[in-house]
């Protein structure tokens, strides 16, 4: 039992990370990570939606006929995204504004429907919820790393505007790493996101190969990639 959860955590956070390995949901990943605050906002929203949709999909899996499961999953995910969007609009207005279109676009994040299809629809509620938590956390961590890199390089700050998301106390979180007369444009614009993302993936691969070398008998490579398969199996 505990082994299962450990494996789920390892898959979500590292081995099968939605951002770094599955490369799912790249559009919001690259678009909103210009600051740590935005990244955190989108990461939390995605995490909430992923947990909610995983639990719901898992809870109703007996009643969903195979042929129409995809539209039902999409509906559930869309409902969750809309709820999260309304809640953020009501309680974190500033971050809602700066995320803009990318909040409703969580619906199209294939990482979410991917988990619903590949895991939640086949496993009990508890595991599905935990899987959502781990996958969501993995995704949010990649967002945060990318946001931190781009914010430091581009603006020379960290947690700029954190008070929009976390309330007034967070205004003190802002760190001025160094002062720039003009911003480093490349890091702020989307190409910078692509480049930083490439480096992140490269670093992960280097670490993976180091680990593989350190072990005399490397584990068999068993990276399960998620495919949303529309054919009946």
């Amino acid at each position: 039992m505990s082994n299962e959860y450990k494996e789920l955590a390892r898959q979500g956070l590292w081995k099968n990370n939605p951002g770094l390995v599955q490369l799912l949901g790249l559009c919001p990943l690259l678009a909103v990570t210009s600051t740590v605050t935005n990244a955190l906002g989108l990461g939390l929203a995605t995490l909430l939606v992923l947990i909610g949709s995983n639990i719901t999909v898992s809870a109703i899996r007996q009643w969903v006929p195979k042929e129409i499961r995809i539209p039902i999953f999409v509906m559930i995910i869309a409902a969750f995204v809309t709820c999260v969007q309304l809640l953020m609009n009501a309680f974190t207005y500033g971050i809602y504004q700066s995320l803009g279109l990318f909040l409703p676009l969580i619906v199209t994040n294939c990482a979410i429907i991917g988990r619903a299809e590949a895991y939640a629809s086949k496993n009990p509620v508890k595991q599905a919820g935990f899987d959502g938590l781990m996958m969501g956390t993995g995704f949010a961590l990649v967002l945060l790393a990318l946001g931190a890199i781009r914010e430091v390089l581009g603006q020379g700050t960290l947690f700029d505007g954190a008070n929009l998301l976390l309330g007034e106390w967070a205004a003190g979180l802002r760190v001025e790493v160094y002062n720039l007369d003009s911003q480093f444009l490349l890091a702020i614009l989307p190409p910078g996101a692509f480049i930083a993302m490439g480096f992140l993936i490269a670093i992960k691969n280097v670490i993976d190969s180091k680990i593989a070398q350190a072990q005399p008998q490397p584990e068999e490579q068993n990276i399960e990639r998620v495919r949303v398969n529309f054919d009946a199996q």
Partner: protein
Amino acid sequence: MRIAIKKNSKILALFAIACTAVVGLVNEFTKGHIQNQQQQHLLTILHSIIEPQRLNNNLANDCRLVTDPLLGSSEPQTVYLARFDGEPVAAAISTTAPDGYNGNIQLIVAVNADGSVSGVRQLKHNETPGLGDKIEIRKSDWITSFNGKVIRDEKDSRWAVTKDNGMFDQFTGATITPRAVVKAVKQTVTYFKQHQQALFALEGSSNSGSCRDEGQSLSKNQNSDTSGEES
């Protein structure tokens, strides 16, 4: 086959109803909060361009919807009227600069009753980050250079960027954005001067919270009854 279709469509309909119900409930629960937030946000912006101590009416509710080519868009724009004991103090007019580097720039321009600019803020734009986005107050205080400026006459050549021999700086690497903003502010002030009487004439609006469309009395081509609220 037909039975399967029937059954599946029933299930699908049930899920649709359930999902819609959930969204409806959450909407009901958050509606008040969202309206509050938007109002608050709007007031913050309005108070940053017209000092709150200069007026004593309910600024966010004393508003009109107007449509005019000078305001850069065929959509109705909102005008918020600031009064002190019923006397006109200033008006905050939302406007669009249609010729930004990357699409429309939405601005709100506050003009004092004497025709000088009280303050300008951008509401929404798609200008290049790091170059054109210096029109945002949190990036640069350039936008405050409009404060107190007046238009002398129709062909006031000072209302241009330095590059065009005007009095407003452009940004390094971005001239189009400030040019568009300067032009939009100038047009808005011109509009205000032309329509000042009519705007303030409609005394004491109701506190319904939504803006009345005064399109008929203030402009030729009113074209919609949307609550054109841009916040």
